[in-house]
């Protein structure tokens, strides 16, 4: 036996010992490919999903046409994934950001003195733009497939709410760098709220926490952006995904 074969065998044994050990078996439930003795069988393929937290998202089996990339283009999944990326990068940004007069300086410092600060900020910002775009494309995909028709009418309603929440998240985040771009874009948007019939002035006052965009507005938008809207959108996403499954999985084929 060559040295190489012997090394191979030793490694395989060690790997089996580790994967079959108490630690790994306690983490991964039966059927997981990470456990010892996983073989590719229809039964195990079912277990991978069934004995997994992912079972909350995915059924064990899906329609064959639905897994063709060209059907959904994975747009709904990517909307969700972008939301996850934005949550992770957003939490990271929160370590370096204070929603006060210091906001602008914090962003400057983040970009110049903190490792990967610029990259993470860029990812958060472009990711947000991308999410608006991807959600919009997802909506267009759904429309062109007529996937909003019975029994999926209500999931479309939830979808429109998700689009609205995505825009609101984007819009509230836009103010946070506290630069000229931020304050004036939000001023344009906030002024529009002033045109709401009858209660326009009150709505605008509530939005700005005053008559115009100030640091009070900044704090308000910050709380909405990092806490309130994410909380709400997660709830609606949960219902959205749940309905996709309850409505019989993905629509189609056409």
């Amino acid at each position: 036996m060559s040295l190489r074969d012997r090394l191979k065998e030793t490694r395989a044994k060690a790997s089996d010992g580790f994967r079959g050990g108490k630690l790994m078996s306690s983490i991964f439930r039966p059927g997981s490919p990470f456990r010892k003795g996983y073989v590719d069988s229809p039964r195990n393929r079912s277990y991978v999903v069934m004995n997994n937290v992912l079972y909350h998202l995915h059924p064990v089996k899906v329609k064959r046409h639905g897994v063709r990339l060209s059907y959904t283009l994975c747009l709904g999944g990517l909307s969700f994934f972008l939301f996850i990326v934005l949550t992770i990068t957003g939490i990271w940004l929160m370590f370096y950001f204070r929603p006060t007069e210091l906001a602008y300086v914090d962003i400057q410092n983040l970009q110049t003195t903190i490792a990967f600060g610029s990259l993470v900020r860029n990812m958060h910002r472009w990711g947000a733009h991308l999410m608006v775009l991807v959600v919009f494309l997802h909506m267009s995909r759904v429309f062109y497939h007529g996937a909003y028709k019975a029994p999926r009418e209500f999931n479309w309603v939830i979808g429109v709410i998700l689009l609205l929440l995505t825009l609101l998240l984007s819009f509230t985040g836009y103010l946070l760098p506290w630069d000229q771009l931020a304050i004036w874009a939000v001023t344009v948007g906030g002024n529009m709220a002033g045109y709401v019939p009858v209660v326009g002035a009150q709505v605008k006052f509530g939005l700005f926490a005053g008559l115009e965009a100030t640091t009070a507005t900044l704090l308000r938008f910050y709380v909405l952006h990092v806490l309130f809207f994410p909380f709400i959108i997660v709830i609606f996403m949960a219902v959205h995904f749940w309905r996709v499954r309850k409505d019989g999985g993905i629509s189609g084929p056409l």
Partner: protein
Amino acid sequence: MVDIPEHLLQRSAEARAKALGISVEQAMAEMKGQSDPTIISKEPEVKVIDETPAPAAETPAPAAETPAPAAETPAPAAETVTPVKEEHAAETTEKVAAVKIEEKAPVAKTPPPAKADAPDEVDFAPDVKVTQRLLTVVKAKPIQKPAKEPIDKVNTWPHLMLPEFVALMAMTAFLIFLSAILQAPLLEEANPNVTPNPAKAPWYFLGLQEMLSYWDPQIAGVMIPTVVGLILWMAFPYIDRNPETHPSKRKFAIMFYTFFLAGAGTLTIIGVLFRGPGWNWVYPWIDGIWFDDLLDWIHFE
């Protein structure tokens, strides 16, 4: 045979007696193992079948000529059957023979049609008494009726989860690449006293901002976004009552959305690229781009 109630035994004995043409007492005795079971040989029946056609074949000739001679047939028929029975199934002979005669008689009596119908009326097991009858015909089908045709499905793992994983990795790579080459804008610190000209909203609201320059803000800024953009759009599945999903059968809806996309896209592009100071029309290739958000900060490092 220990625990079977007497009345049930009695009933099955009666049935057996009737079927075999024996007495009830005999049947009961047989069932209790006190007497040898009555055996009905199959052979006599075969013989009978073989022989029946013969008289039948003989009969037609006279039968066809005159009804009267046909009446004679029963006698030979009875003759042919009876000996056979005696030979092979002693116990049941008389009874079966009697039946035979009774049955054959009407057939033989039948005038001309008897000839034509003869093949159809051949009784292939004339001696077997039917002891069961047809109550109903139950069609073979599953107890649980599936609501629909089964759908062609595949395992989520790996057929869905792997492509999802690839899409997710590709998106991550794209986002990191974008963030590495495209610096997010950061202008001067916010200053409420200095109004930039033009002041533009984020790109996804620029179509609206563009509409705002045509119409009254109450209409373009409030009514259109909330009533059309939100309420009607949410209600859309309830408005579109056409159940078809194939594009060729919902041309209007497809056209409607495509026009919407084209309109929104045009307004947004105008808002992003073709509007400058004072919201006046500019040409980006002449006057430059008046949009700070996306474009001016490309740097390669």
